[in-house]
């Protein structure tokens, strides 16, 4: 089957891509996230990347777990089928979907709670299997949807919404992905569209498991990537008013900086996040070097962004399994069911 998409009526001035589609054709339902949530910027970046890549939206499937981040597939590509599965298990659902139809493009969206806590095992094994997909973690260091508990990617020194200290080591999902053999590992920042869109485009066209850890601040429970001061600061300021269920309206945080540069981004909780964009001469091909670089910079208080590791040589899961080139879901009785004679010979061998 092949489809030519029939463009809907559009405002003539909207730019169109090679399929004759406008950005609007890649949009989704209206977001119900908090105003200023980083996740909405990631959705926008995905929309932009798909538009620029001239992707036919219906040939893309979007999958997620549960969380604010996992809601976002509703907010982009409304012409794509979506699957909002269960908490922490998107990876397995995506793996199965992938095997059923090798011809679609798969985008998985997850959160740091969804991936680094309940979903850590499935994440690690999807990496190992080289499932051909883009796996995005919208990483805010917190459990947004359940109102601000620490997640496992949360900085060790952070102080939470209720003043608790986080005493546990943060999990760096990018390092873990490299270690486990992912073939495309990147880190982005939700506010840096200039970097994020190209990363998503590269990941979407990569064959194998492509992972992007996107730092995506939660404007409401913003206790990640912070100094120990952050929460105190917020609390002092919020005590002046009545509510504990009040979510102030925030502007989206953005940042724009060049390769090799370091910038400080000020988050809603007034604390700073220091980002370092990889230099153009960075060696993407060295997993050990990549891990060392990330860890060294981390020790300096910097979060490295960019394409951290790339290996275009490995087989993806479908190749490892030596799958036929025809999508499995397209095969019918004739392709799948042995003849009656075969069954008779099997019976005969069992007598």
């Amino acid at each position, binding site marked *: *089957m092949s*489809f*030519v998409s*029939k463009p*809907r009526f559009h405002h003539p001035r909207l730019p169109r891509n090679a399929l004759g589609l406008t950005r609007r054709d890649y949009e989704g339902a209206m977001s119900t996230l908090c105003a200023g949530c980083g996740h909405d910027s990631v959705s926008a970046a995905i929309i932009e990347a798909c538009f620029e890549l001239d992707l036919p*939206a*219906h*040939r893309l*499937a979007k*999958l997620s777990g549960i969380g604010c981040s996992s809601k976002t*597939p*509703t907010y982009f590509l*409304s*012409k*794509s*089928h*979506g*699957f*909002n*599965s*269960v908490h922490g*298990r998107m*990876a*397995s*659902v*995506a*793996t*199965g*979907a*992938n*095997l*059923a*139809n090798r*011809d*679609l493009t798969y985008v998985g969206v997850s959160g740091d709670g969804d991936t680094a806590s309940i979903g850590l095992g*499935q994440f*690690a*094994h999807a990496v190992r299997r080289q499932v051909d997909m883009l796996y995005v973690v919208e990483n805010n260091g917190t459990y947004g949807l359940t109102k601000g508990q620490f997640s496992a990617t949360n900085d060790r020194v952070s102080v939470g919404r209720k003043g608790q200290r986080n005493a546990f080591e943060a999990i760096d999902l990018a390092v873990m992905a490299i270690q486990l053999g992912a073939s495309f590992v990147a880190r982005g920042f939700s506010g840096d569209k200039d970097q994020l869109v190209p990363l998503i485009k590269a990941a979407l066209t990569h064959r194998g498991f492509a992972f992007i850890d996107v730092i995506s601040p939660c404007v409401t429970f913003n206790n990640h990537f912070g100094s120990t001061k952050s929460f105190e600061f917020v609390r002092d300021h919020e005590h002046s008013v009545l509510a504990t269920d009040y979510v102030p309206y925030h502007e989206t945080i953005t940042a724009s900086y060049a390769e090799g540069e370091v910038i400080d981004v000020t988050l809603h909780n007034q604390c700073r996040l220091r980002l370092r964009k990889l230099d153009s001469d960075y060696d993407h091909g060295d997993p050990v070097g990549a891990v060392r670089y990330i860890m060294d910079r981390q020790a300096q208080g910097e979060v490295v962004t960019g394409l951290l590791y790339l290996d275009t040589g490995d087989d993806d899961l*479908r190749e490892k*399994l*030596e*799958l*036929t*080139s025809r999508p*499995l*879901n397209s*095969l*019918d*009785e004739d*392709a*799948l*069911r*042995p003849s*009656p004679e*075969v*069954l008779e010979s*099997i*019976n005969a061998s*069992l*007598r």
Partner: protein
Amino acid sequence: MKTNEFVLKFANVNGSGSASANALVARAIFRMGVPVAPKNIFPSNIQGLPTWFEVRASARGYLGRREGIDLMVAMNPQSWDDDIASIVPGGYVLYDNTFIQKFERSDITPIGVPLTRLVNKRFEIPRERQLFKNVAYVGVLAALLGIDVGILEEMIARQFRGKDDAIRANLEALAIGRNYTLETFDCPLDVRVEASDAVGDSIMIEGNAAAGLGCLFAGATVAAWYPITPSTSLAEAFERFCSRYRIEEETGKRAYAIVQAEDELAAIGMAIGAGWNGARAFTATSGPGISLMGEFLGLAYFAEIPVVLFNIQRGGPSTGMPTRTQQSDIISCAYASHGDTRHVLLFPADPAECFEFAIEAFDLAERVQTPVIVMSDLDIGMNDWTTRPLATDPDRRFDRGKVLDADGLDAVERFGRYLDVDGDGIPYRTWPGTHPEKGAFFSRGTSHDEYAGYTEDGTVNVRVMERLLRKFDTARSLVPAPVYGQDTFGATLGLIHFGSTGAAIPEALEMLTNRRIRVDSMRLRSFPFPAEVADFILAHEKVFVVEQNRDGQMRSLLINECDIDPARLVPILIFDGFPVTATRVTELIAAAVGHGSAAGGSEAA
């Protein structure tokens, strides 16, 4: 004379290669035309513990397990006392008199053969000594039971085709045992095999292999699984058959995908992802795996995604008795997952039905858009059964259910994934990628409206939940109907059974008749229960529900789903982990009837 009617039992140490030798004996008897039921009773470890292998031969076709051993092959000193005690008076024990010399019971006949001595004379390497000792006792049995040695020789030759050395050595070992026995004893015994034609066109196969074949013929293309006894061999069989019958000729590529998942949650998650995306997908598991799959089963129920799950039941609860059989996941599968859920279950009673129900399960799952759980067990799954040949209708197409292709989508005004267009509770689906403009929807485990949109409107959710009940009711008319032990109901007492228990029922009914207790029987094959199930119950004053669990789980399900007065249903519970015997069923029913308490004394005329 026990011609073609006896139980043979082997007592061995596991890891000694005995199971293969023992299976050879069972198959040879079968090849002589006598129905056999081998039962491998093995421990949950790899080497060094007691293991048993029972072979019931029955020309009458009574293939339930039977107590009372006619001939014991006692090769394990660890379990010697119990093994000897289990022999019927007048029975025999074959043993290695290289070691054991003296004996307690006088009512059985000892047959001592110096197996070790004989074998060690001929073979040097320890490994060979062990293995050929097994083959040697096969030879002994061939002589004692009168098994056609030609059949054994042919089987060995077939097994080692191309390895002439191996064939020669095995045949030699076989002859060592056989010749010694023919020379030393008066053969055959009164426990013996005579060529017969009682098996007809039957085959011998394990349920898991048959189910794996069923998946092959059903067009399953994605299997995700995690190893666990006793379900492992199902996935492995599927893999084996696929590697033979599902390779694209031109390219050598595979028309199937099998993934050993990292755990059961991932296994069912993958199957659900594949089912959502239009492939026929399944997983197989047992006990603990069922518990772990609960959350995902609820998702598939609510998001209406077809998926097939084989539950090869074993002894629970918890890790329980992993190498013993039970039927104790009935409730946990029927109502798996939190919230209001219910799932379609199929209950195969033998390997042939494992094959048929595998095929049925994929059709049902797609037709009803819901998980279908095939409730097999260790007894069916891991033992060879004498069973009717595997058969399918080559003209029957896969029933993919209500799936809209691009033209179908074009034909509808507005596609609603969860609209009850036909009034049967089953909505239409479409696969990702089908149409550039229409049909895209968002599958979710959260509450949703008829267009798959998220909603927190309670009345909409009630509407969706009530449609799901309607859908389940539709399933009632699609699932396999029960089958009956009699053509018409004549008794006031009834008996309901299902699954592997069925093997013992015909014999139990005969025993009951002999005791002047007449009982009609019905074998359940599915949940939801077709209407005739309630009819059967209401047509009888008391109905015994025979099942292999402590809590009478099927009885609960019957009471609850058919709104039956519990007083009518008398639990007959056997859950020691061994396949049930007709004697035990008979005794429990007779006790219930005789004492009049539970069964209300309604002994039939």
